């Protein structure tokens, strides 16, 4: 929801980044305020996922210019773990499989680490068990998930649910969900989207990175941005997503080039 007096959660200005000396982000500007849902759309290779990963400090990318403010902090100065502790969350497009680390044990460690960094109460294993089961119900997950190795052998849909479960636990101020809809069948999509909607409040913001309009039927964006060649080239409301679904991306790029010329 858009509120005029809402605080600015994320401010990105002129952000540029490279991977292997190749420029992938070529000057991104974006402002996200509390309570808002932003969708970032665009064709393959436009830099959407890179943008998401740069925001959480992925070591494969080098930031070469611009600035990112997260609440009152200079985000780019923070380590990935500090970003997480302060409330930046990335739902991975391809969640990493970690054999040997049990899901339940990992979730408790992550939860307590973040709680302690925020000066909040940690939970012992029994308390945590009750707490996590409640969150799992929200995503219609079987408690058996807790005993399995983290993401190891999970189906695509199970991995995405597990990502949103982590979002539910860590209570982020800013959630960046990278292609959360990919690999989900229609039922799973509804469950995941419903979970995200229930977690979203006027105090946090969500950035959805997605190819398709489909997800936006379930999680309604306040703003839709189109990325191409490492830039945001058009911003609109949810109607823009429908137009994109209908007409593809080419006309947006055309319009952008004409405007630039």
């Amino acid at each position, binding site marked *: 929801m858009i509120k005029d007096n809402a605080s600015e959660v994320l401010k990105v200005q002129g952000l540029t980044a490279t991977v292997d000396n190749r420029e992938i982000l070529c000057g991104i500007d974006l402002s996200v305020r509390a309570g808002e849902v932003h969708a970032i759309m665009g064709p393959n290779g436009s830099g959407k996922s890179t943008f998401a990963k740069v925001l*959480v*400090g*992925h*070591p494969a990318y080098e930031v070469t210019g611009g600035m990112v403010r997260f609440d009152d902090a200079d985000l780019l100065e923070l*380590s*990935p*773990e500090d*970003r*997480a*502790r302060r409330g930046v*969350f*990335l739902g*991975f497009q391809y*969640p*990493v499989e*970690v*054999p*040997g*680390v049990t899901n339940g044990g*990992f979730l408790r*460690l*992550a939860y307590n*680490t*973040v709680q302690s*960094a925020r000066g909040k109460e940690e939970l012992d294993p029994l308390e945590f068990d009750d707490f996590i089961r409640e969150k799992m119900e929200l995503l219609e997950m079987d408690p058996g998930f807790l005993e399995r190795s983290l993401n190891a052998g999970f189906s695509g849909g199970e991995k995405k649910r597990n990502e949103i479960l*982590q979002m539910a636990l*860590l209570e982020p101020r800013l959630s960046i969900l990278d292609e959360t809809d990919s690999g989900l069948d229609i039922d799973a999509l509804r469950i995941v989207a419903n979970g995200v909607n229930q977690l979203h409040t006027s105090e946090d913001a969500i950035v959805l990175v997605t190819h398709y309009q489909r997800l936006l039927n379930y999680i309604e964006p306040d703003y839709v941005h189109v990325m191409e060649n490492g830039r945001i080239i058009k911003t609109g409301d949810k109607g823009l997503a429908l137009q994109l679904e209908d007409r593809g991306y080419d006309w947006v790029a055309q319009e952008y080039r004409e405007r630039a010329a």
Partner: protein
Amino acid sequence: MSTVESNPVESDFLASLLAPAAQTAEGHDLWLKARRASALERASALSVPTTRDEDWRFTDLSMLYRLKLKAADAGGQVDSAILTTLMFPEATTRLVFVDGHFDRSASSIAQEEKVRVGNLEQALRDSAWRSTLGEVESRLATVARVEHDVFAAANTAFLREAAIVHVAAGAQLGDTPIQVINVATGHATGSNPRVLVVAGQGSGCTVIEDYVAVGGSAYFTNSVCEIAIGPDAEVHHIKLQREADTAFHIANTTVLMQDNSRYRNWSVGVGGRISRHNLHVVQDGTGIDCDMHGLAMISGRQLADTHSSVDHALPYGASRQVHKTIAGGSAHAVFNGKILVREGAQQTNSSQQSRNLLLSQRAKVDTKPQLEIFADDVKCAHGATVGQIAADEVFYLKSRGLSETAARNLLTYAFAKEVVEHIPVASVIAVLENHILEQTRTKEA
């Protein structure tokens, strides 16, 4: 061992290693005296190994050979509070040896009719042991390969004090382990710990063979463990090597198994400047089953070498082995795993996995499976991998708030867990978990 003429440092070392054996107290037991004498003769005829020996080519003992050995008539002092922290609470029976000498007051022996646990020297004079001494005599220094191994022979040349565990036929100890704890205080610089486990027909027991240090200087532990498992019996054997990082630890374990018996081994080594574990399992019967879980976790300039062999002599045997190493700093891990399937050992089912994790650029591992198969109807699988902690896994964990160190610790523990998690003594698992997490915290952070 090498037939090449040894250099003076090596022969002087062997002479000083064996010198105190001549003064080993005279006993009334002629068989024991004869066994010591023949072992001394054997050890004197052999020479100590060097890297010219194929079996020792990665493990250079020249630092050990320069160590001035000092035997002690009695063990050094150990603070009882420290000793208590080394005990596993599940083990109600404990034998404590300090610098190779039995410490009766620190030991705790629950008397049970069908289980005899004690120090050899007392057992020989104790009427309660009389009915079991025959079996002790037939197994002691006959299970181990004294003939061809200079270190096992040297240990046997001193044979006077030894941990003896005798479980009578049919006796089941359930989940109550027996802990044999060997403490090095630095009071002596050389000790020869010895363990004998005799499991009677259809019996079951769990033995923790534990090497710990409370002193810090360089010393040499030369241990021998013999395990004789009767028909249908099952022995769980946990060997923990948590010596000082300055120690030299050479251990020989030999397991002799009879028909339909079962042996489960967990062997975890974290200490020692140079450590070597020779683990030999002989399946001398049919339908025998053994599994072995090895873990060496080292850093700094440590070297940990495991040489194992499983001898499948008769049909329907099975063996499974997983050996893992975690090496940081400039540490060097060595594994050589031999599986021998003799001509008569049809229907043998054997698997061996060597898994290695390198935590630094300078760490090194040498691993070698060695299969010798002479039967034609068998199933034998083996594999070896060497890897590092995956950067994408570390980043994923960090993106959920874990520090770099916490993330790497968790992933290191995840790697080790397969070896540790099924150890049948919960407090041993807890100690190892802590150790693994602490070790990476302090040495790799």
